[in-house]
């Protein structure tokens, strides 16, 4: 996906927030958007996601399914977590059965189970943020846009973000993440875009920091051993999936016990 010479201002006579930004992110690539507060990181992400239309310039090759996780999830809505997510899945184009299945899967995965019947306005900020994550992933996105995804999340959920990013990348999707707190060391191999003064500067990853995701099957009895050995070799374990886990839509073709390492 390309952003070509993108200019943006919010009002006709307002100041330019972006001035001629040109960046690209390919399938299976992640980019981290860095910059100070109020410099235009969210603006850039919203242009990429299709929320904002550039005042000048254009965006080409945006994937059909885009998942956008806004900086603050709009929790002021009269729905329960389960009801909201099912509706979001239906709006994204899933059938009722598919939406129910996707909601069950992501509610379990993100630890939202106890909150399934809780109304959105009663959620803590971190839990609401997880609902924001879930709604973006119900339909496997070709482009995942995460605006400060670590904000308000507890330690366990923070660990989950790189894992989710890895899965979208493994599936051939692109991921954009903004971050002002340096959490992105957890996303090795991502491109780095720095927004400053209306322009976007890119620092491409050097050859040895580019990564690929490998799925491998390991006999169940030797999982711990294999994980330890891969870690010792300096690989990053994204997740370990058991035999009983159904092969998910995003990662087909798994063996009895599989492990994702990179």
């Amino acid at each position, binding site marked *: 996906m390309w952003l070509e010479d993108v200019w943006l201002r919010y009002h006709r006579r307002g100041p330019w927030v972006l001035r001629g930004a040109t960046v690209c992110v390919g399938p299976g690539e992640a980019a981290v958007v860095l910059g100070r507060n109020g410099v235009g990181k969210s603006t850039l992400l919203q242009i990429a996601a299709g929320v904002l*239309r550039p005042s000048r310039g254009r965006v080409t090759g945006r994937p059909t399914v885009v*998942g956008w996780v806004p900086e603050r*999830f*709009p929790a*002021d*809505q*009269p729905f329960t977590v389960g009801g909201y997510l099912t*509706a*979001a899945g239906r*709006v994204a184009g899933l059938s009722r059965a598919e939406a129910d299945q996707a909601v069950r899967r992501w509610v379990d995965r993100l630890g939202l189970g106890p909150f399934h019947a809780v109304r959105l306005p009663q959620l803590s900020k971190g839990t609401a943020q997880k609902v924001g994550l879930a709604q973006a992933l119900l339909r496997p996105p070709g482009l995942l846009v995460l605006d400060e995804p670590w904000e308000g999340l507890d330690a366990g959920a923070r660990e989950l973000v790189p894992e989710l990013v890895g899965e979208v990348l493994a599936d051939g999707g692109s991921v954009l993440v903004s971050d002002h707190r340096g959490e992105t060391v957890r996303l090795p191999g991502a491109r780095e875009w720095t927004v400053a003064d209306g322009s976007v500067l890119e620092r491409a990853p050097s050859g040895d920091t580019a990564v690929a995701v490998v799925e491998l099957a390991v006999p169940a009895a030797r999982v711990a051993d294999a994980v330890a050995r891969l870690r010792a070799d300096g690989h990053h374990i994204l997740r370990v999936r058991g035999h009983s886990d159904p092969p998910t839509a995003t990662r087909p073709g798994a063996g009895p016990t599989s492990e994702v390492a990179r």
Partner: protein
Amino acid sequence: MTALIQFRLAGFLRTGRAMAPALAGLLTLAVLYGGGRAQPAEAYGVSAVVLFPVLAWQTKILLDVEPDVQRRLALVAVGPARERAAGLLAAAAAGLGLVAVALVFPWLVGGVVGPTHPGDRSIPVGLALGLWAHLLALPGAVALGALASRAVTRSAGYGVAVLAFGAVLVLVLGRTGSVVPWLAPPVLPTARALAGALSGPAALSLTGWALAWAAVALAGYARARHRRA
């Protein structure tokens, strides 16, 4: 898109804010039919006039109930054209609910009577003409409410001003002898037509006028949303 229409209707109906226009509608109808008995078609014509601002207000509330960020999430999910259409269709569906109430209400409170003189319209004809009058008012009201919505006007005060200005314009420009009647939707002309004998060509021209006005106003809404996206 059906899913988004349902989602927005649910969001509207579950908040207490759906109550305000519903109560205002009922109150208006109660005042209207409190005075005495009238012929159905004539009464329905007036009912469509007084419900026009209520329908527009209800549309604004329905569109504004959704947080801005949620509207953007919907836009990412279905694209701009369908996001806008879903909001308008949800408002139209809510409006149809109020129209149904307006058609039934006078019979419950005895505000209308069947034909009493020779030459009076029969009850089914009166009902059909009443439905027609309300359906003519609905698209224009939805368009006005959409133009007054936060997504277009950005500030609450400005939105209310657009709504009030539009409603007043409909009454002022719709008077007999108005110089530029076609600047407003034909709500008052329809009511006048229903008070007398309504010819086929007149009905057709009123229908065309109402639809054309709504189309222009909705094009303005689409353009305003496009520029503010």
